[in-house]
């Protein structure tokens, strides 16, 4: 059964870096087939993976709306057409497929189309071993445009009090809004054990895993290198050992 993980967090906490590292870790783990979905309108997961999609899900949506306006169609044919176009929108690198959702809808209400699109994405995802969704802070976007249920939500925060508070707020919304089994708080860019302990004191949610501050990650980020080429480093190892192991291999939290 595929496992679906959504990664949320306020801007700047390293959410996309964590997502990219998770994609890499899963893809290398037993050669799993990974579907990486960039549901953040800022569209940074593609940059982090150095995969540039030709088309986004929103492009597909706009095309379909234009074709509906031009010709009548029925649900069966529309669903098939969506499926075809989504495949065209996929970018692949080895055993990783990447889908960018794109910018939010700009006009009109096409609820049935949005539902069909989401069902098409869910159908596509069913053929993969792991689905990693990099989302903005709002889980409702994931719910509405990508997938109705996820196996786990990772809330990424940095070491700041503000980051922790925002993560707690997002966590509350997530618990109410989405069908998910687990909500896990991930502390990112942690300098040392003392900082981690201080975070634990201030956090309303238990910290599930922590990722150390890492110069190699910083370098990759600053130079715009693909995280798929990231060498083994403390941050990546922490993600492998604490997150991948727990979620995908049934191990417990660190």
């Amino acid at each position, binding site marked *: 059964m595929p496992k679906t993980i959504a990664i949320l967090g306020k801007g700047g906490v390293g959410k996309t870096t964590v997502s990219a590292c998770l994609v890499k870790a899963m893809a290398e783990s037993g050669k799993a*087939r990974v579907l990486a979905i960039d549901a953040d309108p800022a569209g940074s997961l593609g940059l982090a993976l150095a995969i540039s999609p030709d088309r986004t899900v929103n492009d597909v949506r706009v095309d379909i709306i234009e*074709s509906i306006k031009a*010709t*009548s*169609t*029925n649900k*069966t*044919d529309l*669903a*098939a*057409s969506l*499926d*075809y*176009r989504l*495949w*065209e929108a996929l970018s*692949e690198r*080895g*055993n990783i*497929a990447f889908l960018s959702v794109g910018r939010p809808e700009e006009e009109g209400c096409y609820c049935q189309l949005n539902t069909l699109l989401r069902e098409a994405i869910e*159908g*596509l995802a*069913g*053929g*993969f071993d792991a689905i990693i969704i990099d989302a903005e802070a709002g889980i409702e976007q994931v719910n509405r445009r990508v997938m109705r249920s996820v196996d786990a939500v990772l809330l990424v925060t940095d070491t700041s009090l503000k980051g922790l508070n925002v993560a707690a707020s997002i966590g509350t919304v997530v618990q109410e809004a989405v069908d998910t089994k687990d909500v896990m708080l991930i502390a990112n860019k942690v300098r040392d054990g003392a900082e981690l302990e201080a975070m634990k004191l201030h956090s309303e949610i238990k910290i599930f895993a922590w990722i150390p501050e890492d110069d190699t990650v910083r370098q990759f980020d600053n130079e715009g290198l693909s995280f798929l080429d990231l060498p083994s480093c403390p941050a990546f190892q922490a993600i492998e050992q604490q997150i991948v192991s727990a979620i995908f291999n049934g191990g417990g939290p660190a």
Partner: protein
Amino acid sequence: MGLFDKVLVELGQYLALKQAGGGLRELSVESQDAWPLKNSPVLKEETAVQLGGKGNASLFMMLWDSNNSGAANRISLLGPDVQSATPTLPLGLVIVVKGDFEEAYEAYRELRSAAYGTQPLGLSIRIRPDRSQIWCRISETAMQEGFSLSTYGTLLVERLKKVEPVQGVEVLFVTRSKEDVAELGPISAKAQTIIEAMVKMYEEMNFECETCDYNDICEEVVELKAMRESLRESG
């Protein structure tokens, strides 16, 4: 009289031409109970053969023949089968189902759904109805297991025969050249126009024929006209 009578005549002429020129052969229709069906995406790196899709000629057409109530099934192939193929091939897939389809629109939806939903494990098949395009990737694993177009054709036959009132199914695969696929284009375009007219009638239930883009085809195809009148009376 059937919806696709004239289209079927043109298709018959195409087949006769190809038969006369050599290269058109029949494949076996054997039970494929053992080949599992599963919607399983095939990634590029897993692909042994790609048919149709981006950069390759492709065409998908499905018709029904109400005049021919024979129960015979047939799978024909013009061109190489996938086991002896190069990594990419053009693909024309034409399906003709035989039976007495009284509820044409309902039959259309069920048949389309059945055809789209026939997804053999180890293949990714995507069909784009609005452009009559098809894209198929066959995995290395499926090829090693002995997958062939006979396998896919038989799975289509078996699936479509479960739709009432289908009595027989004929499947044609065209993989020889993009020109052979392109020759089906005008036939498919005609069929597509008929289908669009039918869909519009049923989906919009608007019978202002004077302003309708499909008025000409409705006048030409007796069945469409009859459909229109029947819907008008019942609406």
